[in-house]
């Protein structure tokens, strides 16, 4: 079956592949695509894991005793310098070469998905790929976020390649995320739930099958390449029912620690943003600060899974564990806040395990419990639930690490629920949504009431389709010049290059009804210099408010809110309305 004018029966869909159009059952298609997305994401994950691992061991060869954690074997000077070198390389590649601006990572994916912007560019995967440098050089971050992001971009790019409808691309993005988490944790069920509750933010039955297939395929492929390894090996343990109230208290404490982690990351990010230095050098500065911490406390460097496994196997030293908890938050805040690419999932696990082990040791000392291990494991669940806003992922991941023992279910659910309660009570969002909430973007509320507040102006800013005209040019001369141009709008500048306004050819013609006026008016006479200015971080709600105050069809977008910020592009009233219509059709 081929051709472009196929009538599609109910339940079927058209896809275009290698220039040919096929009709296929929608369900079959999504199943197949789920598998493809899962396979590709798993292969990318394997490459990511191996490059981070070999990067670390090739750049900084292991010289320690057998069984010693790699970073501990390095000389203090190496620990000081290596995150800075990593930051310098990724800062240069990301901001100087790649010219990356604005948000990326899981928050950007969440916001795009929530606003119906499902087509991601392959280029967006670059920051995620560069996270290997952060991890290989000891930056305090995790691989899960970048891998989930790569998965989502894989889903989106594959969807675009076979030209599937926008609303189905959303499912493929979810499949990619699930595959990424499944591959990195060797935990397929946790992958499914992470995609549903963090990225898609709903539990649609229609999305479940392709996402589950992607997760399973990714797990199988990763298993084949990396083996059936778990990052943390947990010895079997039991929890007596009388300890349930203690887990309730522990859940509340996990909630408080989650809030400190969420707000700590945000505080570091905004503090480092204010330092007056080139953006591309900040990751190196962040790396140097993390290196400084690493000289004295190397435990907080890198993903931290080796040390997590160590603590889970042999929890000891309450004060030291609490020290690690505090410095891990600081090191992660500095690493990510300074612009080093990386995720916040693994640090959350680290913080949860350290806090849990400390709590467990304290209660063991008091004679209230027999072992600190259950609290160390539940700490992981608590932080994933509280800090990442992913309670089901937390439970599934914990069950996976405890061989799905049913007797831990009640303490697990208690910890996860109460931790989530505390975070919600203080309206902290999660590490992914906290800054969005601070800037007035509530994904859940906006999905129901105001989709325009989710979409940034940058998403629909046109960076071309216009030409420049000097303000002093006679309108007659400008009309002659514009006749030769395919541009839709003309940017008018003063003699010294400062932005003056925007004109369309239509506006020029409408203004000049008589030929002799062509010599009376110069372009600057026709330009409305009072039109509102937008910048990329504003939302389409702001843009629509600005449009309502003017009859302009397009508004200028500048690089920032500063008065002298360079002109970047234009945004049209029609494109704002189209974005709204597209979203409301999707939801």
């Amino acid at each position, binding site marked *: 079956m081929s051709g472009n004018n196929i009538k599609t029966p109910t339940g079927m869909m058209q896809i275009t592949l290698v220039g040919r159009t096929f009709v296929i059952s929608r369900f079959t298609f999504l199943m197949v695509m789920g598998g493809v997305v899962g396979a590709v994401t798993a292969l990318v994950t394997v490459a990511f894991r191996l490059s981070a691992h070999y990067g670390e061991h090739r750049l900084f060869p292991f010289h320690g005793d057998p069984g010693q954690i790699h970073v501990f074997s390095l000389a203090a000077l190496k620990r000081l310098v290596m995150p800075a070198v990593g930051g310098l390389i990724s800062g240069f590649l990301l901001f100087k070469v790649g010219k990356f601006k604005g948000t990326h990572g899981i928050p950007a994916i969440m916001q795009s998905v929530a606003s119906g912007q499902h087509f991601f560019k392959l280029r967006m995967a670059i920051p995620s790929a560069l996270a290997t440098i952060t991890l290989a050089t000891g930056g305090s971050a995790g691989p899960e976020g970048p891998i989930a992001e790569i998965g989502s971009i894989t889903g989106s790019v594959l969807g675009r390649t076979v030209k599937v409808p926008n609303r189905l691309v959303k499912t493929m993005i979810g499949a990619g995320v699930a595959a990424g988490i499944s591959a990195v944790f060797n935990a397929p069920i946790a992958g499914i739930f992470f995609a549903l509750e963090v990225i898609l933010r709903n539990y649609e039955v229609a999305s479940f099958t392709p996402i589950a297939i992607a997760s399973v395929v990714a797990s199988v492929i990763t298993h084949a390449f990396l083996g059936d390894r778990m990052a943390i090996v947990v010895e079997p343990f039991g929890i007596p029912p009388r300890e349930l109230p203690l887990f309730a208290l522990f859940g509340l404490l996990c909630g408080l620690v989650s809030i400190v982690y969420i707000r700590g990351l945000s505080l570091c990010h905004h503090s480092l943003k204010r330092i007056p230095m080139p953006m591309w050098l900040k990751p190196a500065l962040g790396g140097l600060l993390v290196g400084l911490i690493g000289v004295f406390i190397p435990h907080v460097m890198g993903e931290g899974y080796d040390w997590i496994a160590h603590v889970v196997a042999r929890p000891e030293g309450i004060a030291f564990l609490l020290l690690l908890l505090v410095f891990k938050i600081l090191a992660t805040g500095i690493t990510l806040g300074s612009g080093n690419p990386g995720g916040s999932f693994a640090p959350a696990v680290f913080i949860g395990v350290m806090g849990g082990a400390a709590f467990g040791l304290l209660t063991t000392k008091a004679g209230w419990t027999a072992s600190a291990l259950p609290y160390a494991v539940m700490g992981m669940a608590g932080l994933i639930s509280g800090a990442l806003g992913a309670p089901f992922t937390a439970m599934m991941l914990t069950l996976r690490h405890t061989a799905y023992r049913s007797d831990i279910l009640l303490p697990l659910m208690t910890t996860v629920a109460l931790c989530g309660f505390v975070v919600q009570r203080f309206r902290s969002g999660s590490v992914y949504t906290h800054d969005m909430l601070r800037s007035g973007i509530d994904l859940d509320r906006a999905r129901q009431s105001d989709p325009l507040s989710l979409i940034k102006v940058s998403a629909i800013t046109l960076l071309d389709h216009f030409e420049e005209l000097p303000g002093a040019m006679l309108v007659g001369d400008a009309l002659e010049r514009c006749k030769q141009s395919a541009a839709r709008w003309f940017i008018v500048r003063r003699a010294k290059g400062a932005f003056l306004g925007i004109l369309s050819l239509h506006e020029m013609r409408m203004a000049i009804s008589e030929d002799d006026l062509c*010599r009376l008016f110069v372009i600057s006479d026709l330009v409305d210099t009072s039109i509102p200015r937008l910048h990329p971080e504003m939302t389409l709600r702001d843009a629509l408010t600005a449009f309502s105050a003017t009859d302009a069809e397009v508004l200028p977008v500048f690089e920032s809110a500063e008065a002298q910020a360079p002109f970047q592009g234009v945004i049209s009233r029609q494109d704002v309305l189209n974005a709204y219509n597209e979203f409301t059709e999707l939801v």
Partner: protein
Amino acid sequence: MPPSKIKISDLVQPRLILDLPPVAKGEAIEALCRAVSGDPRVLDGEELLRAMLQRESEASTGIGLGLAIPHVKIPQVSDFILAVGRSREGIEFDTPDGTPVHLIFMLAASNRQTKPFIHLLAGIPQVLRDEAVRQELLEAGNPESFARICGRYEW
């Protein structure tokens, strides 16, 4: 923004109609700017003069037929204001037909009034293209009769 209801005839005020000696065009514009600078609609007279001269340096507002229409829209003006200069001897204004200018209609507006500004400016040559009207305005005995003649036209 709906099309402006304001008309040139509403803006012509006898106190802002000047008889100019045969001076250079810069001096003529300066005299008109000084005349309007005390008006509450002009928030900064110096800036108005600077903008008028700047605009004139970009392209002459002399359009031929003995007519010039200097104009600007700037934030330092709050609403439309019109001043008229009359020169029986004529002022060199770098016009396309090379003839000196006898009537100068200087219009200033706020930068928020782009569309009505263009509408008002476009109306001036439409009326003054008629030589009889120009002649009548030049021969008006005083500013009041000049304003009355202007009031007879829809522009």
